[in-house]
């Protein structure tokens, strides 16, 4: 509504816009900005800010979803500090993130550089992206069946070449690496494309200069590509690390947190507490803890990787 009146006022002075006092104009710009921001702001308030605040409140209550929440102060947080399963879930998630992000970033970087240096083929780029287009649940189930101890293709193959069978999803030591690698398979093409876009932004002249100076591929990679790619890598890492911390779906359709607690990641534990044990207040407290951890991780990454600046002049 505010726009209509603003628009009407603006209609008259069209011939001499410069004559208008600047404060008036700024007010109009602010109004326009607010109008354009409104839909996004509404979404932010309804889907982010309000649930976050409510989550914070619920974390201070004893709430079983079916009866009204009861304020319990910091009880949930006190329980949290002494909850071994929670600490174990943090540890498990960290293990997952390190394997998942470590392998994924190296593989994606290698793929991106290969694409950049060797081929312009869109078909190959398309093929790389393919796993990302398949639903998470389908990917998880297909790998779950392929990696089955007795009936799976992978173990049959290992048997055939004389290796011992491995309980990929059923063995406590293998479950997290297996799930981490399944998700590397799904996400590496997508991540490679993001990095590839960053590579294309690097000035070609720098490479020519390096070639003139007789630098080899290895030196070019470590001396030019990697430093100039830093801001993009930082962004990619922040996005993928945060996504990685929230691992849930692959676990939910395969191991469901087991064997024992080997794959009970933070998100899986939150779900368990909330939806199978109806401890919504406690689940909210874990969510708040996860929120703080993620905020810290993102902040630390931004600072450490100086993501805001570029080395390219």
């Amino acid at each position: 509504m505010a726009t209509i009146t603003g628009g009407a006022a603006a209609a008259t002075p069209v011939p001499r816009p410069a004559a208008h006092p600047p404060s008036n104009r700024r007010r109009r710009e602010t109004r326009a900005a607010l109008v354009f921001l409104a839909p996004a702001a509404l979404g932010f308030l309804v889907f982010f800010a309000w649930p976050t605040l409510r989550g914070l409140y619920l974390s201070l209550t004893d709430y079983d979803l079916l009866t009204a929440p009861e304020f319990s102060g910091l009880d949930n947080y006190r329980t949290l500090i002494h909850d071994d399963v929670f600490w174990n879930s943090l540890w498990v998630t960290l293990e997952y993130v390190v394997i998942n992000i470590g392998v994924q970033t190296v593989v994606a970087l290698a793929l991106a550089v290969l694409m950049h240096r060797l081929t312009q083929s869109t078909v190959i780029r398309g093929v790389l992206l393919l796993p990302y287009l398949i639903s998470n649940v389908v990917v998880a189930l297909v790998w779950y069946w392929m990696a089955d101890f007795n009936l799976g293709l992978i173990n049959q193959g290992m048997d055939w070449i004389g290796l011992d069978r491995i309980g990929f999803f059923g063995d406590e030591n293998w479950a997290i690496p297996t799930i981490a690698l399944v998700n590397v398979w799904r996400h590496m093409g997508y991540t490679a494309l993001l990095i590839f876009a960053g590579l294309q932004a690097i000035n070609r002249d720098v490479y020519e200069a390096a070639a003139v100076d007789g630098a080899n591929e290895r030196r070019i990679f470590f001396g030019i590509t990697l430093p100039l790619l830093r801001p993009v890598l930082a962004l990619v890492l922040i996005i993928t690390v945060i996504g990685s911390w929230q691992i849930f779906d692959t676990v939910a359709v395969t191991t469901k947190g087991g064997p024992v607690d080997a794959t009970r990641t933070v998100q899986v534990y939150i779900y368990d507490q909330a939806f199978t044990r109806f401890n919504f207040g406690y689940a909210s407290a874990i969510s708040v803890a996860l929120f703080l951890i993620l905020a810290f991780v993102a902040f630390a990454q931004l600072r450490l990787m100086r993501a805001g600046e570029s080395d390219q002049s």
Partner: protein
Amino acid sequence: MASTSGTPGTTGPAALPRASVRLRRRLLGGVTALSALALTACGGGAFGTGDGRTTITYWLWDANQQPAYQQCAEDFENSQSEYRIDVQQHGWEDYWTQLALGFVSDSAPDVFTNHLSKYPEYVTRDLLMPLDDLVERDHLPLDIYEEGLTELWTGEDGARYGLPKDWDAVGLFYNEDMLREAGLDPAQLQNLTWNPEDGGTYEDVIARLTVDENGVRGDEPGFDKHHVRTYGLWMQGAGGDGFGQAQWSMYAVSNGFQYTDTNPWGTHFNFDQPAFQETMTWWQHLIEEGYSPAFAVQDGQQSADQMAAGNAAMAMDGSWMTGTFTGIEGIRVGIAPTPIGPSGERASMSNSLADSIFAGTDHPEGAWEWVKYLASPACQRVVGEYHVVFPAITEAWHVAQQKFAEEGIDVSPFTDQVEQGTTFRFPITEHAGEISALLIPAFEAVMSGAPVDSLDEVNEEINGLFEED
């Protein structure tokens, strides 16, 4: 109209052949269309079904049983003109979560299949409709059900929260061809004995049926327990929501173990007692000897699939799996009862499901009519005809037994347990959700080799839940 008990009158449609049911339904459709006009004219019953019938939503989790209940729903719709039944199936994994969310958002089904481990928590939150007044009003006969089933659904407060629909038992499914190859006779399996020290004749059979990759049997010298091709006894997960229904309960109870101080409504669990821990030590020993798969090995496909693939010679499972096991193509599967334990008797958990009404239903009368029909001989006989599970009404499970017999399947290993009184009940307690969440990882750990006395700690944690109350 309901006061004269709808049960005898409703037996008609079920007995009719299917084709005539359809014909009747079409005729009835015309009649109900007219009554629909009358109803909407009165301004009532406008629930969007078009024919003026009120829709009653019904949930169940077992897809194998859906056809039987669909048939019941069809018969029920033909027997009256007020209600339509919408049967919905949701897999066990999501069933309880969806139900809880339904309770919160007031969109839960009017009637749903309920489980003994879940209903106490619903009762304390006033989510289930007590049925006592209705049962009394309609003079429902409660002595037609298998003994003890109706009592299971009487809450701690003395009110009735469900009418029993079926019961189950546990038994040993075996590959008959493998048995003969091993030089064993199926008749031998009918009277196996077990004890926690040396496993008795039961363990002898398991060892005999285990074969390594070189073809050496488990009871022969040179058996390689690290490269087993066929396990004598398959084990599936820590299982049964942590209560070991088809995993270890039959051994533990035949060894004198009782889950809780009293059942139902116990407040103290006994997982720290010798009778239980001896059993678990033996159970773990099966894995160590290579006769049963370790947790990492069994993870994944179900035991019936493992038997189909030749990885398992025997598997302990529930009576509701009979159709799946005996339906495996290419092999003959037989059933044997659980072994006789140190107590001198067999033991089998017998669980029973019931249909409950959501307290927040908009159509309590319609929901009750449907529950009453589900619990009637008319519907349960139909369920018996489909013979997936054993219905709760004695004469109806005899129908199922006969149907199995017609297919050459002898289900007496299950029914004998009931008739000889060797069944025991699922432990009905408060906090079942929390208890499962604690038990499952604990048993997975034991299956993966953790010391059995690690269960002491879990037992303490569980008992702590009751002390907080």
